């Protein structure tokens, strides 16, 4: 009798495994990179999951009046940021208070948003879906809208083996997509990997040395951020009065500190800084050489002015451009319509 029970149990486990198992996608971690922070064990990557996430990312169904999608503010060919708009526009033309962030290598992020207020990639997406100045849509409305769509019910079923869509499934599906927006194939990466026929020019090399001296303590390789919060000397915007990190920690020492952003694909993610106040990399460098505003929380590294000749400034920018990853920017997999290839 016991043998019978064991046999039945075994068969049950075996069949449920066979029927629910989908081919998992392996998340590649480049050599020498730290371990990702995002816990893929709680959200096994599958091709169908990625496609579902991609469909959601490009679909205005998540906004109340079906006018904008995640991609409206995070476009792939502008490094997943909102080009030409200083402060990302949302529904009804309302302006958010911050510049859109680049969506790249998010699996390594220890926190999200300019103030680091969000602690996990999955729950980040609640913000655009519920923030009045973004998609203006309650999370439950979004879930209802998806449940009312036979197409989405089918897609969710094929991924989660459950036809009832919950906010958890919506958020995990989005994270399947956003966590896989990776960049590690820039010229910089090729040079570091010592690939054949790739090397820095003399100017880029000089830029790289300057970068290591003046910038890398915060924009640390290989992700070009150490994920800390710093005040890099921007003057306070008197209209927005954004206190940054202090709004999360309630600690006045954190006033005007913001998350150190990655510089990958920086060539294409203008405008720059949390409020999008400058448009070119030249302006960014000039900020560091001659625009630093001294205040109580100003970073130690920036207390002494950084002095760069015009040539050195140019070289530094040339180096920053080696962080451009054409493969990531033009990857078909990241594009709209990729989800159309979804098979039942």
């Amino acid at each position, binding site marked *: *009798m016991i043998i019978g029970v064991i046999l039945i149990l075994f068969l049950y486990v075996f069949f449920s495994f066979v029927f629910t198992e989908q081919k998992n996608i392996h998340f590649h971690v480049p050599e020498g990179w730290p371990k990702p922070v995002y816990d893929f064990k709680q959200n096994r990557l599958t091709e169908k999951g990625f496609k579902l996430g991609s469909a959601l990312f490009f679909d205005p169904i998540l906004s109340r009046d079906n006018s904008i999608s995640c991609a409206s503010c995070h476009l792939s060919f502008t490094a997943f940021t909102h080009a030409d708009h200083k402060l990302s526009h949302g529904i009804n033309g309302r302006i958010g208070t911050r510049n859109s962030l680049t969506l790249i290598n998010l699996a390594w992020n220890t926190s999200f948003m300019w103030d680091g207020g969000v602690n996990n990639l999955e729950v980040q997406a609640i913000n655009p879906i519920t923030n009045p100045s973004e998609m203006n849509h309650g999370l439950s409305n979004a879930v209802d809208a998806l449940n009312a769509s036979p197409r989405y019910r089918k897609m969710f079923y094929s991924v989660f083996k459950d036809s009832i869509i919950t906010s958890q499934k919506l958020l995990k599906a989005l994270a399947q997509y956003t966590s896989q927006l990776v960049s590690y194939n820039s010229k910089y990466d090729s040079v570091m990997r010592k690939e054949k026929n790739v090397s820095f020019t003399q100017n880029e090399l000089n830029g790289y040395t300057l970068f290591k001296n003046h910038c890398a303590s915060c924009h640390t390789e290989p992700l070009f951020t150490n994920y800390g919060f710093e005040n890099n000397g921007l003057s306070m915007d008197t209209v927005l009065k954004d206190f940054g990190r202090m709004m999360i920690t*309630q600690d006045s020492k954190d006033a005007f500190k913001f998350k150190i952003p990655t510089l990958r694909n920086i060539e294409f993610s203008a405008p720059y800084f949390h409020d999008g106040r400058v448009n070119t990399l030249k302006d960014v460098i000039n900020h560091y050489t001659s625009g630093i505003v001294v205040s109580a929380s100003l970073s130690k590294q920036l207390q002494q002015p950084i002095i760069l000749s015009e040539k050195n400034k140019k070289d530094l920018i040339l180096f920053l451009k080696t962080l451009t990853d054409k493969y990531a920017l033009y990857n078909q997999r990241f594009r709209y319509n990729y989800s159309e290839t979804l098979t039942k």
Partner: protein
Amino acid sequence: MKKMVCLSCILFLLCISTYGQMQISFKPIFNKDSISVLKFYVSNVQILYRDGTKFKENNSFRLLDIEYIESFLIILNAPSKAIEKISFDVGIDSTTSVSGALDGDLDPIKGMYWAWHSGYINLKLEGKSKACSTISNEFHFHVGGYRSPFYALRRIDVPIVNQMGSSVAIQMNIALLLDKINLKQINNIMLPGKEAMQIADYLPQIFSNK
């Protein structure tokens, strides 16, 4: 084989005899102040029996919401024996708070989640009191926070003196809580911080079994 069957039967009987059910009902006590919202999380319930044994429910999170009064009755698959003490957390621990998108009572749709500074609201209490200096006499307390130094979860220990078979009532004295808060000065808390910590500190004093 026969022996084995016998043994399994005995084990089975043993299980159903001790694993009965315990019912814990939360009874809010109000005074004249009108309460419009009372929602809070009860998690990781633990029972200490008089015979020294323990029952523990790990990773269990229950949202009690006065709008759905049935949620104030908690049913546990725990042995029905004489109880010494019942312990539970009011709120969500920090590990759970950083675990991404969650389901069931932890679904952010339940309205107990802050989106822009991630984290659960452990306790929501809203209503009206003459003591409030606000125009409409309203107070709004959204108490939560998992980051130190503003970790607002509180462990509550309730010594049990009054048990009716398999059910126990726990009084939650909202009137006392509102008495303790200086409503004139503190009537609107929407963020983790010092004030939220103060309210959290009062929580262990308002639960009792009489």
